[in-house]
């Protein structure tokens, strides 16, 4: 337990101190949201309608940003071998790393959502809905991305391969995240899609570490 806690603290410290950490993801998120009106025009009514979708796409892409370094950095400096040999189950170790990654990448995106929602002319209720669905959905994105990060750990071109492997698997999360946000805005049945979104998150919390653990065992020899 103390080993896992130490790993959590170490990973968060590394994320904050190297490469800008949380701020970089939020900055990317901000840029995606800023670019969209340039592409579709400054139409506030249209932006309000597709706002939740823009926020979700932005968060999806931003959460992939730092993923390729999640295991690759540890692989390069050799600490991944120590983690593999450690006494804690590899799946729990991987889950801990995912938690640290989510706290430094996913959570700041959720916190930044209200501000970006204002740019997109969203009502307070809609902003709340998008922030809530992102809070429930981004752990799933991290855990699915975990599989891609573990598969591409020792690859030179892993950074390019990872989104190709991971993005098709995130389709259900995107569908139910946006659907729940839109349902909350139109006032029609927020519960069902939101609960399915939570179910997807819980499912990927199990599948992600299992598959990532297997991939790490196979990949690093």
């Amino acid at each position, binding site marked *: 337990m103390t080993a896992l806690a130490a790993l959590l603290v170490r990973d968060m410290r590394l994320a904050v101190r190297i490469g800008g950490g949380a701020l970089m993801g939020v900055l990317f998120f901000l840029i995606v949201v800023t670019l969209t009106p340039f592409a579709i025009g400054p139409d506030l009514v249209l932006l309000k309608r597709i706002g939740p979708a823009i926020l979700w796409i932005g968060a999806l892409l931003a959460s992939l940003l730092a993923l390729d370094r999640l295991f690759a950095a540890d692989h390069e400096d050799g600490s991944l071998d120590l983690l593999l040999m450690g006494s804690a189950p590899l799946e729990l170790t991987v889950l801990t790393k995912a938690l640290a990654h989510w706290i430094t990448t996913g959570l700041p995106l959720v916190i930044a959502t209200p501000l970006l929602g204002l740019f997109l002319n969203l009502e307070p209720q809609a902003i709340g809905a998008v922030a809530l669905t992102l809070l429930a959905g981004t752990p799933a994105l991290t855990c699915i991305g975990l599989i891609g990060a573990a598969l591409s750990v020792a690859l030179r071109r892993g950074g390019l391969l990872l989104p190709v492997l991971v993005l098709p698997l995130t389709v259900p999360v995107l569908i139910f995240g946006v659907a729940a946000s839109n349902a909350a805005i139109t006032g029609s049945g927020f519960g069902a899609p939101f609960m399915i979104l939570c179910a997807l998150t819980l499912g990927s919390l199990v599948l992600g570490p299992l*598959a990532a653990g297997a991939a790490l065992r196979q990949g690093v020899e």
Partner: protein
Amino acid sequence: MALIDLANPTRFLALVARALPWLAAATALAFACGLYLSWFTAPDDYQQGATVKIMFVHVPNAWLAMGVWTVMSIASIGTLVWRHPLADVAAKAAAPLGAAFTFLALFTGALWGRPMWGTYWVWDARLTSVLVLFLMYLGIIALWRTVDDPSRAGRAAAILTLVGAVNLPIIKFSVDWWNTLHQPASVIRLGGPAIHPAILTPLLTMALAFGLLFVTLHLAAMRNEILRRRVRAMGLMQAHAAQGA
């Protein structure tokens, strides 16, 4: 002959060499029967006219698009659980074939959709989930090509294939749900009248023909992959010998 006997690549190659001509002949025969039935005996649809015959190519391809992923999943279990030496060869040889069948299903569907629905592409639930399946095939192929050591690439691709096998039903379900949410009354439905035997017979014959085509191409691709790995091993041995000398 048990599956384990085939673990010896030489024995497998001998079997393939014996079976391949017969399989190729059976494929050609099945295609001849199937194409004859679809062109000359199957009636035109009272609404769709002759374009309904695209179905005889389209539907078998769509079935194979899903069937090949199943084959790859079984092979992946063989790789990870039993370490069967030919399992990752089978998985690797199946991936491009599956991608090709999926592409053909999408392509013939688009050609069929143009006269029937007036557009090449709609974001219909079924089309969209097949498109995602196609993207996942391409992801698997990309992973195979990025890792240069074949056995390591095999295990990585096996894990991704199984993750995909778990996720594909979820994706299918979500996309169905997404589509019904957005267009409650879909005009695009392939149901129509229950299938008449005059259409069903050519369809099943064509499905058999495409199935045989897959088996033939798959065995040939597995043979090529085994030979390719031998060439690679020989090249490495030569390089080692040259270094030692």
